[in-house]
């Protein structure tokens, strides 16, 4: 039963600070509300128009295009589900999706692991001024163009003339064919991707770690927890909402990886580093099969949605909200 009685009809209502709110003059309230709504729409308009034109329309157009054959040069022709049946039997598409999933598993685990490990180190071991330095230093690669980073990494990992092999050579390690063998190429693509992207997850984790009250750790210490057990039973549960956000974002980004493999290896040797987005690019802009490329895009979109939904479903079991 409610303890507050509803105001009687005609009784002036009180505003939040307790002052009596003056009723608006007759006839002005609807127009003021209308004006306010119009103003709200006016301010929202640029975002709505931008999202509509640059996000919503392309999404809808891509979905529609997936049911057509279109080579840019002639009019689109309705193809029903032909594009989807073709991509299921295309070995390159299958390999590319397999590569992408493998890449996501390795890259995301590495990215989150490195980011969390470094965040814990920086938060616990370093003074505040050094924390600021590392926050910027680790974030810096993210603001660089992925294509530029990949171009100079390609030089660094060149088998004959690269700095990496030169350094390894100084300690007696023979030249490693980084970019010309399937395993070497995959390793370089993952390394370059993780190096460039872990900074964002690092910042998220650092923020989450700094919000854990010191008293919680003190209480855990009193209960006898030390070292790893403290992190296992205090840190990880308390930052689990951040871990969820970081992992969702990392997985979505990794599923769309393109720049690094495209510049570093062009998907090779063979198809060993070809990813789903690379196949979309090649199918659309090199083979001029825009309908088929859209169909691959739709499948990738569904995959991303399914993985994200699964993550949120699993989060009910693993994420702890205070």
């Amino acid at each position, binding site marked *: 039963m409610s303890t507050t009685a509803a105001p009687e009809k005609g009784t002036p209502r009180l505003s939040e600070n307790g002052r009596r709110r003056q009723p608006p003059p007759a006839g002005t309230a609807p127009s003021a509300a209308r004006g306010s709504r119009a*103003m709200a729409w*006016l*301010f929202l308009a640029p975002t709505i128009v931008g999202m509509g034109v640059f996000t919503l329309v392309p999404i809808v157009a891509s979905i529609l295009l997936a049911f057509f054959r279109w*080579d*840019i*040069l002639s009019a689109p022709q309705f193809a029903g589900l032909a594009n989807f049946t073709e991509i299921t039997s295309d070995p390159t598409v299958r390999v590319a999706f397999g590569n992408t999933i493998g890449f996501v598993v390795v890259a995301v685990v590495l990215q989150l692991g490195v980011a969390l490990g470094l965040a814990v180190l920086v938060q616990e071991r370093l003074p505040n001024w050094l924390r600021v330095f590392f926050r910027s230093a680790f974030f810096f690669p993210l603001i660089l163009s992925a294509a530029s980073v990949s171009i100079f990494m390609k*030089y660094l990992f*060149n*088998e*004959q*003339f690269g700095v990496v092999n030169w350094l390894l050579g100084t300690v007696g390690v023979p030249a490693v*064919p980084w*970019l*010309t*063998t399937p395993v070497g190429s995959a390793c370089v693509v993952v390394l370059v991707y993780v190096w460039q992207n872990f900074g964002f997850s690092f910042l998220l984790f650092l923020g989450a770690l700094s919000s854990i009250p010191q008293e919680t750790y003190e209480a855990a210490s009193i209960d006898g927890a030390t070292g790893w057990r403290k992190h296992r039973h205090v840190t990880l549960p308390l930052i689990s909402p951040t871990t969820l956000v970081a992992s969702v974002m990392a997985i979505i980004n990794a599923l769309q990886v393109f720049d690094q493999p495209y510049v570093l*290896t*062009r*998907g*090779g*040797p*063979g*198809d060993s580093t*070809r990813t789903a987005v690379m196949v979309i690019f*090649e199918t659309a*802009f*090199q*083979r*001029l*099969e825009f309908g088929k490329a859209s169909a691959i895009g739709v499948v990738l979109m569904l995959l991303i949605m399914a993985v994200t939904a699964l993550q949120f479903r699993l989060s009910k079991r693993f994420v702890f909200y205070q």
Partner: protein
Amino acid sequence: MGDSIRLRDISRRTALGALGVGILGATAASWPRLTATDIPGRNDGSLSIAILGTAADAAARQKAVDAFRRLHPEIKVRVQAIQAVDWKDFFSKILTMVAAGNPPDVVYVATEGAQLFAEKLAQPLDEFVRRDANVMAEYFADVHPSLVEAFMYRGSLYQLPMDWNAANMYYNTSVFSASGLARPADDWTHLDFRAALAAMRRANPDGFTPYYWTNRLFGGVVPWLYANGTSFLSEERAAGGDWLWDRFYPSDPSRASRSGGYLWEGPNADDPRVVEAFDFLRGLVKDGLGVRPEEGGGNSLVGLFASGRIGTTPAGGYWVQGLAEAGMGPDAFDVAFFPRWASGPASAAQRHQFGTAGYAIMKTAKDKDAAWEWVKFSASREAMELLFATPSTTPARRSMVNEALYSGKGPAHWKVFYDTLDRFPATGPIPAPPQQAAVETALIKNVSLAVSGDERQLKSALASLQGDLELALRRTP
């Protein structure tokens, strides 16, 4: 100060409103910029010419544009430089412009895209060439028919070759002499080449690569396939083209073998001679004589070659200017013919690979006569001397490949460039059917694997190449 407006009197809504008005005003003021209508030559009836390159490359053509305007003051010209990683990327961008309803009138197209354009986008030049046959006779007399044939497609001519490059073999002369090697004979074989690489390897054990090559359509695996009288695609000739050959090359020694253009319609990666050529390259990689064919860029290769870290590499006349700019003296490098295959039916032909480029008129060009005037003028000696003042490519006109062009820059045997066509008439263009992009992707995908493993991997990679090519050629371009 009673009448003055104090800052606190301005409500947030007023301030935001003023900001909105300001943004609208700025947008209106910059509308010509935002819609790109302020670009000179845009929507004013100018002939729009797309080239692969930067704004600096477009500016470098300004002298030719000025000279053209003096001849044709009624035709406005706008050169659009389109930056791209390679020709494949450039063609993708042109296609995007077509899709956006803003195609250029004339496009500078290399062999890689010649058949794609001929099949889908370009206007045949036959009528124009016939109409101006008297003027064009001087041009054709100066240009090797192999270059012209590369731009014939199913009996029609689509482009006039402006510049070209064969895959010749560059070598670092100081590395050669330090390894006890003399200049290769003109008819050296692939086995002589391998022996030269082995000598360089012995003389330079560390940090040195005797042979550097790249995995691309030009200068990669194809020159070796041509040397062995084969290719990864079947090669046929289309009927037709007599109208051109009879009129402009009636007494050319190769007249009888000229056709209506090349046709590459089937995969041929399982040909035993393809396997043999790949196996030779695999042996070079295995024995540390050559690199795995990475996606090397021209710029990095120039630097490595100029610094003596590479002994040999296949390239065309376009490399000379780059090497000079990298500090190589005219005697520090030289060029030789590509080796012939030591045995077999192809050993006498010593077939080389070349690529050429020229202007194509788009079917959608607004004023095709004006476009033809530009194409015709560009092929004139006057224009080509303005365009090719330095040896950054090989001019299509034989008379321009002369001592003066290479003076002070080298190489000593610059005659090799045009002699490649004159002495080896079987020399052929990059195999680039209309489905070139998919074909090149298939090649790049499989070549690295073919040459960097054991014999089993080689066969499996070539089988995969055969399958990928079948799929690629089945596609409508």
